[in-house]
């Protein structure tokens, strides 16, 4: 019966029209994940095309400045296309190709997942269409142009709140229209089974590398791992290999927008309740009647009213903690890391940096913290300038 559960979360709550598609995907994935040829091609793409392994960088100046834990940055921002999204996308597009699909579709928030999907589709020769909320096509205009350069068709979604959740709605609708030749490259650890598992597996390369690099550098495991959480793919990727290492503290940083006491927030664990949406049971920002809330975050990539089911379960178990970070704190951290380390982080990743600034001073100097820097901030520069009242034309 019901498959793909993480505790009580997960499952497959989707229209009947899509059921055979997700069953086919599960079967094919179960075959290819053990197929040496597939794995070799995937690893080769990660290493020779995307630039893995990514650096684990000791942020010495930030460490000194904060005066607490020793801080390392996992540099997913240095990957080809500028974020962790490429890890998942190369895996899924390769899988789609093996499955005989000729077309991929995807939702995107900040545009990073759309750019990564368009990139992989260009490389592997598949047709590509991207769905992006109208509000996001405005605040991330450069990424729209990037996707088009890469040969993708970009649809601006005008339904609902015109952000990430509506982009997911529209991509699901498109998939029900055309499943025979089309794979939906879901961009985070969310949606119906098997997506949360597939995306987690492809992203877990992040924590496998952190573990190995940390053992080489320091000869021990870190005390804390921090990552921002939208749907939760860079976070689960950073946490996964440490879940059994109970001494490693796992901290997910959610977008609180204007604050968790306001309506303009996207902090799901802090303000959400149990629900069933976008194919999964998990926590969602919603009202008492189950209407999904119009969430807000300065970061298009975290502006999502739900969280992946595996995170919901890690929260239930108390294995990982989830903390809210406001727009203002994220913008300060965006500027802070740029100034102190000469690294401009994605505004999404800046949420994790912001929490690190609170947490590190409370830790001792013989403790170690790793922050997943999920993406680079070039895409955000103009929007942050506008937020600060500086008029810049892209």
């Amino acid at each position, binding site marked *: 019966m019901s498959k793909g559960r993480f505790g009580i979360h997960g499952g497959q*709550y989707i*229209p*009947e*029209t899509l*059921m055979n598609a997700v069953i086919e995907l599960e079967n094919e994935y179960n075959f290819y994940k053990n197929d040496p040829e597939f794995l070799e091609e995937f690893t080769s793409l990660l290493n020779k095309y995307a630039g893995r392994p990514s650096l684990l960088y000791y942020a010495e100046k930030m460490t000194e400045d904060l005066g607490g834990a020793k801080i390392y940055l996992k540099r997913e921002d240095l990957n080809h296309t500028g974020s962790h999204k490429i890890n998942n996308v190369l895996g899924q597009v390769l899988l789609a190709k093996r499955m005989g699909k000729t077309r991929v579709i995807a939702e995107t928030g900040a545009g990073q997942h759309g750019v990564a999907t368009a990139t992989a589709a260009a490389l592997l020769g598949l047709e590509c269409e991207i769905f992006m909320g109208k509000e996001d096509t405005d605040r991330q205009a450069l990424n729209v142009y990037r996707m088009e350069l890469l040969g993708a068709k970009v649809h601006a979604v005008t339904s609902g709140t015109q952000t990430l959740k*509506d982009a997911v709605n529209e991509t699901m609708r498109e998939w029900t229209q055309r499943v025979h030749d089309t794979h939906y490259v879901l961009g985070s650890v969310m949606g119906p089974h098997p997506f949360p598992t597939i995306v987690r597996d492809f992203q877990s390369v992040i924590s496998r590398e952190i573990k190995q690099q940390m053992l080489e550098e320091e000869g021990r495991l870190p005390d804390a791992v921090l990552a921002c959480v939208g749907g939760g793919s860079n976070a689960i990727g950073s946490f996964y290999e440490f879940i059994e290492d109970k001494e490693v503290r796992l901290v997910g940083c959610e977008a609180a927008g204007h604050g968790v006491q306001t309506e303009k927030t996207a902090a799901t664990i802090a303000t959400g309740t149990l*629900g*069933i949406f976008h194919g999964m049971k998990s926590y969602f920002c919603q009202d008492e009647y*189950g209407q999904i809330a119009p969430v807000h975050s300065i970061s298009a990539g975290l502006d999502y009213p739900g969280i992946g089911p595996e995170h919901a379960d890690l929260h239930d178990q108390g294995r990982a903690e989830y903390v809210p970070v406001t727009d203002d704190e994220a913008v300060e951290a965006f500027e802070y890391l740029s100034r102190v380390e000469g690294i401009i982080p994605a505004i999404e990743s800046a949420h994790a940096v912001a929490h690190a600034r609170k947490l590190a001073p409370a830790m001792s100097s013989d403790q170690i913290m790793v922050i997943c820097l999920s993406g680079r901030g070039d895409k955000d520069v103009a929007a942050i300038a506008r937020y600060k009242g500086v008029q810049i034309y892209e």
Partner: protein
Amino acid sequence: MNKLQQVFSDGKAFIPFITAGDPSLDITERLVIEMAEAGADLIELGIPFSDPIAEGPVIQEADYRALSAGTTTDKIFAMVKRIRISSTVPIAFMTYVNPIFTYGAEKFMKNCQEAGVCAVIVPDLPFEEKEELLPFCSEYGVTLISMIAPTSKDRIRLIAKEAEGFIYCVSSMGVTGVRKEIGNDVEEMIKIVKEVKDIPCAIGFGISTPEQANKVAQFSDGVIVGSAIVRIVAQYGEDCVPHVAEYVRNMKDAIR
């Protein structure tokens, strides 16, 4: 006895869909009563949802209109109770799993029983997940309607075997909306169902004209029409009732 049985007892059934609260619950109340008078055998009432992923633009917009007008699940239950003062027409709810789950599945089904709602149609609750609602449906005598789609293939037998009330046969790929052509697969799908179980099959998604209705009624037990009616509601707003009633009368005549 569940009222669904009477739906298919008088020839081919005509099943109109409207979104509750579009443009207001007062109009919805009048629409239900007038559509029943005009020959509707079962009324499919949509409980609006913020993110209706199985819906095309026409019904999406009806959902937004209804929600902006302040429609809630509680107000819809109250309206159905008012309808029951003057009409016994069978009513089924169509909504997504989250509005039911978050409201509380048990409370929802109990309220359905009290208001005389005989069935629920939940497009994002496939066969594999039906245990989410089925125990509460059974407890309160509400039928959970199963859906099959052109992609169901080998799943049709599996679904049909456990189906109750009637089967909602999705005629086309994609979301709801008016279509020029109704897919040919649906006749074959119904044949497979009937091999497994003697259960009525109603066809929905895409149907708008009397000709289309007549054609699909040849090989099915009922015709479901949503977007075409919601479009009339959108066009005439507060004045839509007679226009919708006339449409329903023509459609029922076409399949008699």
